[in-house]
């Protein structure tokens, strides 16, 4: 169904140009971060456009790796990403599995009460007080427990479970499998694409989250990576006043090297995203 009129050709060309510019504009900041991070401080200041590095200089990275707080905040973030995602998945799978059985008594009302939390919330301060009263302020659990289930992901999971043919589960029950056995031996292996997608959603959330940390982590030593970065990128005018006359503290190459260090792990999950997540979006669009 190709048409070869001039109007169409012009449209196609403009379309390709517009979309290419859009893609380049999206990529540009990433490129500039990379180029700046491998420039020397003097080299960075000497050039106007940071499209190509004048010379490759890794001083900024050496500085970052020695910086106090980087590795400990990295550790916190890795912990909440790994443990947080495991807990997320455990709860999302078990809750989603039971709720997918719509003829089980009570699941409808529970589902309603869960969806209601998407529509209405007590707000920031009451949630803060719950975390405070649980005594988990300034611990990693304050970053894990309040977000143990995302209702949106729960619904995606539930819808996926509902799409598995009932007859497979029924035959397993006839063969003497318990409900828990069915879940672990049959339903979970059949749901790997959805589980992979939702795990990635959760992991990316934990890696990037700083809102919860702003609320619940006041102790500098317990900061996750994003808070460490925030103070480096946005507060270093203040810290440079107390930190002496090290010119590097304000240097863009160092800031950008820090961004790269936080960026690389998340970018490396990108190929996996590519594989699974369009599928995940489609699962989510199934109405339930």
């Amino acid at each position, binding site marked *: *169904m*190709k048409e070869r009129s001039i109007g*169409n050709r012009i*449209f196609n060309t403009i*379309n390709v140009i*517009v*979309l*290419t510019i*859009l*893609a380049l*504009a*999206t990529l540009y*900041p*990433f490129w*500039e*971060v990379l180029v*700046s991070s491998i420039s020397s401080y003097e080299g960075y200041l000497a050039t106007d456009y940071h499209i190509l590095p004048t010379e490759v200089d890794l001083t900024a990275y050496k500085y970052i790796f020695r910086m106090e707080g980087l590795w400990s905040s990295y550790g916190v973030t890795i912990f909440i990403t790994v443990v947080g995602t495991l807990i997320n998945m*455990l*709860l999302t799978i*078990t*809750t989603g599995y*039971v*709720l997918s059985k719509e*003829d*089980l*008594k009570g699941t409808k009302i*529970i589902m309603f*009460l*869960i969806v209601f*939390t998407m*529509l209405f*919330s*007590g*707000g*920031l*301060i*009451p949630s*803060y*007080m*719950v975390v405070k009263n649980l005594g988990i302020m300034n611990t990693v659990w304050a970053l894990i*427990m*309040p977000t*143990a289930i995302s209702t949106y992901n729960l619904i995606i999971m539930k819808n996926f479970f509902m799409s598995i043919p009932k007859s497979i589960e*029924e035959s397993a*029950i006839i063969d003497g499998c318990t*409900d828990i056995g069915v*879940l672990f031996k049959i339903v979970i292996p059949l749901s790997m694409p959805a589980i992979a997608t939702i795990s990635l959603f959760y992991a990316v959330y934990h*890696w*990037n989250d*700083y*809102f919860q940390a702003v*609320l619940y982590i006041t102790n500098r030593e317990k900061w996750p990576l*994003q808070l460490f970065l*925030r103070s480096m*990128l946005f507060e270093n005018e203040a810290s440079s006043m107390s930190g002496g006359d090290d010119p590097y503290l304000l240097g*863009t190459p160092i800031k950008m090297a820090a*961004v790269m260090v936080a*960026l690389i792990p*998340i970018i490396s999950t990108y190929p996996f995203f590519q594989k699974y997540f*369009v599928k995940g979006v489609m699962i989510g669009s199934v109405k339930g």
Partner: protein
Amino acid sequence: MNGLTTVKKKSSKTKSNRSLLAYIWFHRYLYLLLVPGIIYYIIFHYIPMYGATIAFKDFNIMKGIIGSPWAGFKHFEYLFSLNKFFQVFKNTIIISLMRLVCGFPAPIIVALLLNELSKMKFKKVIQTVVYLPHFISWVIFGGMLVTILSAETGIVNMIIVALGGEPIGFLTDPEYFRWTLVWTAIYKWFGWNTVIYMAALSGVDTQLYEAAVIDGANRWQRIWHITLPCIKGTIVVLLILRIGNLMQAGFEQIYVLYNPAVYRVSDILDTYVYRLGLSEGKFSLATAIGLFKSVINFVLLISANKIARMMEQPGIY
């Protein structure tokens, strides 16, 4: 599903109670699996909803939520008398509406443009690239923005100067700051939403297009009569969700990007609640604002959904 549904049909009350217990016992493993999830929702969602009652109390940390004396609508009355509150409320609505009006059509347009491409490979590359910023935290993205929008060294201002303009203080000039917030948010989000529309478009039957070509429909007619109607449901659902989030002007973004020079135009309800509650310890007042926000969100979402249903569109529930 496993024969037990027949057990439940009983007439007498004691018998039905017993059979309900038997029913639960028979499905005990399933109910057991539900327990952790229910505990989570009670602790982290329903207890805070109860905790929101401190908006109607004079909250005192020592006395706790239950022990604090009731104060009626005192905090709300005080709030509505504050100029600051109105300014913050106005900022929230302005920023949100700007984001909605400018940002909502963007991914639809990009999805339509992508859909018109005939080279699959190019389409895939563009699609892959544009949703990249979605996976970056606002801290990191903010760091990138500060660099590219800087008045002295940022590429955007260099281009403006090269074209003969004056450098713009995107992040420091109150006149431009809201636009900066709006367009950078769109910049970060449009790709992700484009993919959602693309997923909806991938379900469109290509025979429809072939038939339309045979009938002599041109490109615009095909977009108007086939492509758009096919993603109408997705558009409506996303629009309802956006309207339900109108009070959410983007805490994470603003908290990273704002600075004293632009507080006046960018202080929103969330940042105000955060400062009042957590920095100044005015828990009741801050909770009152939070509750005010939740109620408005709730009403907006319900109304948008209702309107969508009246127009015979699928709502979100």
